[in-house]
């Protein structure tokens, strides 16, 4: 049985609360000190041991596959630059396989395809500050996948994408087999899970700061074969098409997607965020792009829905004030 695991490392960024009366004052949106403090608190007990295990696996030629969000790398650099240096060396030597995704591990795709594309681009740009190698394959946050995701990711130069299997009509499709996306230019897909017993498994694991249910890193999992090589095997014409018109998310993700999108406050936030992206995408500064992405962080969306009503309202109101703040800069 071929077992693969993709280990996710992220650190959600806290946003400063913005009162209605503070709109237009160009106040800092991200609470860097609070976010950094949280990272520092978790580092020794939680983060460092996981990273050391990744390094150990790399040393044992197990080719661990890892996604690092940009905030995670930034905080790691501040916290322990030597550890980052060790990781960098292993990545550059090809012993750690980088996996591409969104810069801030956000649900930007649930908001706007334009925002998603920008976040994926920012990730590739940002990664250059840390590593010489670029990732060959892509996995969206929560393994969100549909045909349009494939189209966008292909345009960014990735070799392939990890997708969530549609449990309803796999019709014998199983993971480990390469499929073609249902796009103008076919794109290679690997399913992270299939619909029956097979000999291939991609586990999606939470290293830190992600919402995959499992945080167990299996030291024995050896990605002997570089996963992107799987995409290059076989004749492309022989691959069958995997069509997904509506986004599917990984069953390994802690919450169902409607929990991030269906509450009226979440709907309003995502809709307004999307409208702003559509209107100003050719003018937005990098900081404003970043803020729009951070407003789509899973934790942020969830807190609007699942914390106490008052706290949820406060977060929503502050988020909308941030959006207004951005919009005023371009009017």
């Amino acid at each position, binding site marked *: 049985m071929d077992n693969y695991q993709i280990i996710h490392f992220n650190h959600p960024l806290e946003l400063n609360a913005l*009162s*209605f*009366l503070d*709109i*237009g*004052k160009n106040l800092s949106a991200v609470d860097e000190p609070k976010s950094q403090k949280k990272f520092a608190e978790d580092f020794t007990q939680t983060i460092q041991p996981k990273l050391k295990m990744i390094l150990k696996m790399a040393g044992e030629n197990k080719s661990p596959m890892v996604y690092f969000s940009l905030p995670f790398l930034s905080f790691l650099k501040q916290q322990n630059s030597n550890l980052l240096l060790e990781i960098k060396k292993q990545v550059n030597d090809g012993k750690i396989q980088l996996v591409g995704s969104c810069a801030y591990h956000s649900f930007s795709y649930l908001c706007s395809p334009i925002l998603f594309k920008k976040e994926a681009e920012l990730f590739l740009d940002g990664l250059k500050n840390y590593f010489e190698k670029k990732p060959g394959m892509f996995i969206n946050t929560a393994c969100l996948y549909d045909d349009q995701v494939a189209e966008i990711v292909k345009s960014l130069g990735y070799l392939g994408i990890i997708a969530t299997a549609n449990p309803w009509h796999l019709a014998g499709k199983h993971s480990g087999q390469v499929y073609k996306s249902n796009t103008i230019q076919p794109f290679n897909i690997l399913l992270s899970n299939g619909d029956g017993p097979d000999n291939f498994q991609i586990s999606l694991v939470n290293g830190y700061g992600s919402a995959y249910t499992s945080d167990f890193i299996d030291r024995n999992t050896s990605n002997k074969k570089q996963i992107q090589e799987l995409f290059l095997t076989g004749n492309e014409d022989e691959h069958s098409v995997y069509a997904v018109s509506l986004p599917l998310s990984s069953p390994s993700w802690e919450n169902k997607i409607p929990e991030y999108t269906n*509450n*009226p*406050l979440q*709907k*309003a936030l995502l*809709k*307004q965020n999307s*409208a702003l992206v559509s209107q100003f995408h050719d003018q937005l500064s990098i900081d404003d792009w970043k803020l729009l992405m951070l407003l789509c962080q899973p934790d942020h969306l969830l807190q609007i829905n699942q914390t106490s*009503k*008052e706290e949820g*309202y*406060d977060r*929503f*109101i502050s988020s*909308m*004030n941030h959006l*207004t703040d951005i*919009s*005023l800069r371009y*009017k």
Partner: protein
Amino acid sequence: MIGPGTPSPENSGLGIACYNIAQHLAKKVHLNLFSVESADEMATQEVENGKIETLTREKLTNKKQLMADLVHISIKSEINPYFYAGSAKIEQHHNEALEISVQEALEEFSLKIISKSRNLAFDIIYAHDWMAIPASLKLKGLSGKPFVLQVHALDYDRSGKKSNSWLFELEKEGMQMADLVIAVSDYHKRIMIKAYDIKASKIKVIRHGLDKLNASDYKAPFAEDIILFCGRLSLQKGATTFIDIAEALVKKEQNIRFVVTGQGELMEELIGLSTDSGLMDKIHFTGYLPQNDVFAIMKASRVMVMPSVSDPFGLSALEAVSLGLPVVLSKNCGVSEVLKDVPQIAQNDIDGYVYAIREILANKKLASKTAKENSDSVKKRNWEVVSTEILSALNQEVKNG
């Protein structure tokens, strides 16, 4: 005095009025204030002048030390003058259980007041709204002292109609048993007479007043005119009507934004309505803001709309006017009795509101002149004047025995 305690997001106008009345009365009489709210700031002041003793929630719950926190939360959430839920049916089901727990908390609160006042020498019971009625009736029965009930809002106003709820019956009994009922407007007096069958002769109208308002330093960053809704996000205040007005208004006026200050049970529904109406880029929900921030937004706004289903007075309209902000009121607002040349619209007449707002936007000079005249007029009636009138009425009842 049995009242709601310090102003808070939960008791809004009622809390502000009672706080001001208590502050001014305390300068003239020895006032024992019984309140469910823990009033740290007020308590500090009161210790300094030594005239008021506050029965805070901490004291109320001392008996059960281990359960103190739990009881605090319970009482805080359950004894809330605005516990009415939104229009959603799901909330109505929730209310049945809530009503029972409110009644239980009310009974407990009343018993504690009776217990604490057993050795207290007093001349008159001065109570505010339904929360204070059961304890006041028992106190009156035990002491034989006169009972004056000031009514800031009724079940009729909050539910928008005459109902057969236990609260309606409680309010009716309270007003019937009171020696004097203080109404905050003629509009409300008429409701007491018509809906509650209270004798006109025992109702005295004493309208609210205002002290000088301190607004935060604020300059709106928007190029558009701000149309303001300020109040609890509830059916009583016509919050959903405001969204309907906004939806209709944006079809005729482009250069406007809407600001909704305050919070309440309809928040989620209003946001949903605004999203569905495509208003979210034009409307801002501020949530709860400190009073001086609200005043700052009033100063930065062009019009304030108060489309209340039934507003016994409407203190925020008085505040707006004193800051020079033109207002458009529903016909069901008591505050209109102290304002001149203010548009009053039938509560559901969306076109009427739209027309009145557009008139103000189109005639800014005239609107400002009217607002200025009203501002000068309302500033003459401050809380000192109001509390003097209340004290006079209380003295009269003491004399009457």
